[in-house]
Every structure is written in structure tokens, then in C-alpha cells.
């Protein structure tokens, strides 16, 4: 693909804020070249009770980073004797991704709920910057759905609307991106906890007839 510094990596990941929490979603395909090494991957990774991350890029790099942040955050939470903030988790990712930017291929979306700011989505793309957004898409499949999300997103959606928005978007990306596919894994994170859902291949939202 054109554009300086751009590396295409496999996946479609997404996260959306709503009042009271976040919805996160991802496809389930891991590829080595054109072979699908794992068709039921879980790219929504537990970081803390109310904080998850969506991983795109090198599977090894992102797993290693997530492991480190998981450790750092649980330690921090024990010291604080309080659930950690989403912004803290996101900044831990940023510190690693920025410091080791030349050695890593990792595009991460950190999403969760905390008492201070409610549902939050933070994007840490390759290069190691950090920015909070009301919704974020990532991975190679995301390029195919910028148009869809830009036209369909409305601020102030409910949890159910967010789930539908996310499922539709990821389904469209999976349709067009060879590096994304399998099932759609969704999760809704609120004060009450994490609700996980899987949408199997047969139940994917369908858009085209052919």
C-alpha cells in the first residue's frame, strides 16, 4: 500500500464509547502469509477487570506487550488498592510502544470503564502516540470501513446500537479483507463487568446478495 511507513497487518479491530461503558470487537483470523494459522483467535485481551485491549500487528509483539502491561497494571492496582484507570493502562502501552517503536509492529486499542471518566477508548497506533477517541478502528481490515464508520457513527448511541455498529463494521471489513475473517468476537465493558459474545460465521450480518 502507498504511504510512507505503512505496514499492512492482519486484523480488524474496533472499539466504541457509550455512556456507561465501551463496546469492543475483533475478527478471529491469524495468518502466516496466506495460511490461516488460527481461525478462532481471541484478539480481545484481558488487561484488568474493566480494561481490555484489542491487538493488531505482530501477534508475538502484541502478546508480549500485553503480558508486560498486565503485570505492571495489576501491581499498580494492588499498590493503589483501587481499580486502575483506563488512561493509566493506555499510557503503559504507550510507554512501551514509543520506547521500542523501531522494534515493534503493534497497533493497539485500549478500552474500558473506570469510575472517574466512565467508558473510554484510547488508540496507540504504530509509532507510539496516544489519543482518546469516541470510537476507533484498527488493523489492515480497518481501511475498508473508514467510509462505513464515518457515515454510520452517531454520538450518544446506546450499548445495543454500539454492538450493532461494531458487528456491522467488522463484518464488512472481513468481507473485503483477506487478512480478516472467521468469527466476530464482541465484548461490552461496563461498571457491572464484561459481557462477551461471539457471532459465528453463519450468523454474520450480511450486506451483499452475491
Amino acid at each position, binding site marked *: *500500500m*502507498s*504511504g510512507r511507513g505503512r505496514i499492512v497487518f492482519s486484523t480488524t479491530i474496533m472499539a466504541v464509547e457509550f455512556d456507561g461503558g465501551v463496546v469492543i470487537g475483533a475478527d478471529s483470523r491469524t495468518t502466516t502469509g496466506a495460511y490461516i494459522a488460527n481461525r478462532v483467535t481471541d484478539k480481545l485481551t484481558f488487561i484488568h477487570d474493566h480494561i481490555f485491549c484489542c491487538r493488531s500487528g505482530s501477534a508475538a509483539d502484541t502478546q508480549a506487550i500485553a503480558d508486560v502491561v498486565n503485570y505492571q497494571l495489576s501491581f499498580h492496582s494492588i499498590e493503589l488498592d483501587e481499580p486502575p484507570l483506563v488512561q493509566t493502562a493506555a499510557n503503559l502501552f504507550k510507554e512501551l510502544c514509543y*520506547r521500542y517503536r523501531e522494534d515493534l509492529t503493534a497497533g493497539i486499542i485500549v478500552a474500558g470503564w473506570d469510575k472517574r471518566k466512565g467508558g473510554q477508548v484510547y488508540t496507540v*497506533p504504530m509509532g507510539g*502516540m496516544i489519543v482518546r477517541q469516541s470510537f476507533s478502528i484498527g488493523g489492515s481490515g480497518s481501511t475498508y470501513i473508514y467510509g462505513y464508520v464515518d457515515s454510520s457513527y452517531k454520538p450518544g448511541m446506546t450499548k445495543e446500537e454500539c454492538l450493532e455498529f461494531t458487528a456491522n463494521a467488522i463484518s464488512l471489513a472481513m468481507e473485503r479483507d483477506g487478512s480478516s475473517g472467521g468469527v466476530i468476537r464482541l465484548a461490552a465493558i461496563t461498571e457491572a463487568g464484561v459481557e462477551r459474545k461471539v457471532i459465528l460465521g453463519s450468523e454474520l450480518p450480511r450486506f451483499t446478495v452475491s
Partner: protein
Amino acid sequence: MEVCNRRMNLWANGPSPGELYSFPGSTSCVGVGPVKTTLNPMVTGTSVLGVKFNGGVMIAADMLGSYGSLARFRSISRLMKVNDCTILGASGDYADYQYLKQVIEQMVIDEELLGDGHHYSPKAMHSWLTRVMYNRRTRMNPLWNTVVLGGFYNGESFLGYVDKLGVAYESPSIATGFGAYLAQPLMREVMETKPDLSRDEARQLIERCLKVLYYRDARSYNKFEIATVTEGGVEIEGPFSSETNWDIAHMVSGFE
């Protein structure tokens, strides 16, 4: 002759003439892990414009973070307030700018804690930044940014430029990136005939330049911020958009 065939004892296990040689024991950063060379800017910002006027300085930048050609982040701020007399705008890698912002903000806090009433002057900040950028480039690990620094101190306006090579200078008008080609000539044309602009005239000049950049820079976005520093302090206004005129489209048809 024989000499050419013999290995010189002095160079045993060393490089052959003309070969690149990295000396053993070359330094890596102490203690905090491999911060290797930033050779690939990822999310980048385009032009930053700066202009001096009578009583202060104005800096402007759009709010786009480009990921190659993709307009990925459309609401990021590339301008920051350093202290009550200094503002800064950066183009180039946004992660490096965020790092610089963090360092500068901590510096300003530390200085405040000294409680001696002194604050970093714009010139001092510019000088410091130049040293930092040049040092990083010498270690082959640059901060991939071009920074425009504006300030108003002791009744005088300051406008400076520092880039990733450590090149630094001051000028009544500054533009980075595409702006250097498109906006700088416009700014210089106005300022050479009328060096002392009023605040409104400076604002109009900047907005005119931003419009041209939106027309002609493929990595720009029609959403920008303007930071102004005067005797009264710092004001960062935005987001604004330019009015664009596409009437000429009706005058063109086909390609001949």
C-alpha cells in the same frame, strides 16, 4: 609489489581500507532500554505557520494526524502553551511531539517549583530545544519534528524554528513543510512591504495561507487552531475552518 599482498599488522582483525567500521563498545543509552533510531515517522502533522505582529506572535497548524496518505486522526492539537510567554507548534511525527510535550511540561513544572519567580524565556527555550534536537541527530536518533517556537518577552516578539537536524533560526515569518513553499512567499510579500502588522492583519494573513495550503497540500485538513501570545498571555483558539471557493470548477471542462 609485495606490500600490497601483505596484511598490515596494525590492522589485524580490523577493517580493510574504505570499509565501514563500528568501534567495539559503542554506547547505547544507559539504563532505560534500547531507544533506537527513529527512521520512520508514523503519524505525522503537516505545515505549521508562524508570524510576528505588533505586540505578539501568532502560530497556526491544522488538526490532522496523517498515517501515510490516510487522514487518520482529525482532531489532534499540534500547538501547545509552554508558559505564559511562549507557544510551540510541531510538524512531523506526532509520537515524538507528544514525548517532547511531556518533557517540556515537566520542565516548566520543575521550574515553577523552584519558586524564584523566573520563567523560561522564548529564546532560552529555543536554545535548549536546538541543543536537544542537534544532540539527538548526532546520536542518529532524531526527534522527527520541525518545531516553531513563538513568544513575547520583555516587550519583544520572538519567532524561531528548529528542525530534526538541529537547524535553527529566527525570522519574522516561518512556515514548515509544504508551507515553506506555498505560504512563506505569501507571508514574506506582505511583511516586506509592511513589517509591522496589527493582530488582525496577522490573523488575516495566516488564514489566507491556511486556505491556500488546504487547496494545495494533499496532507492537510480544513480544521485548524491558532495560538497567539502577547503581553497578556497565551490564547489557543479553535477549531476553525476556512471558507473555500471552488467557482473555477465551472470554468473547466475536459482536459484540453
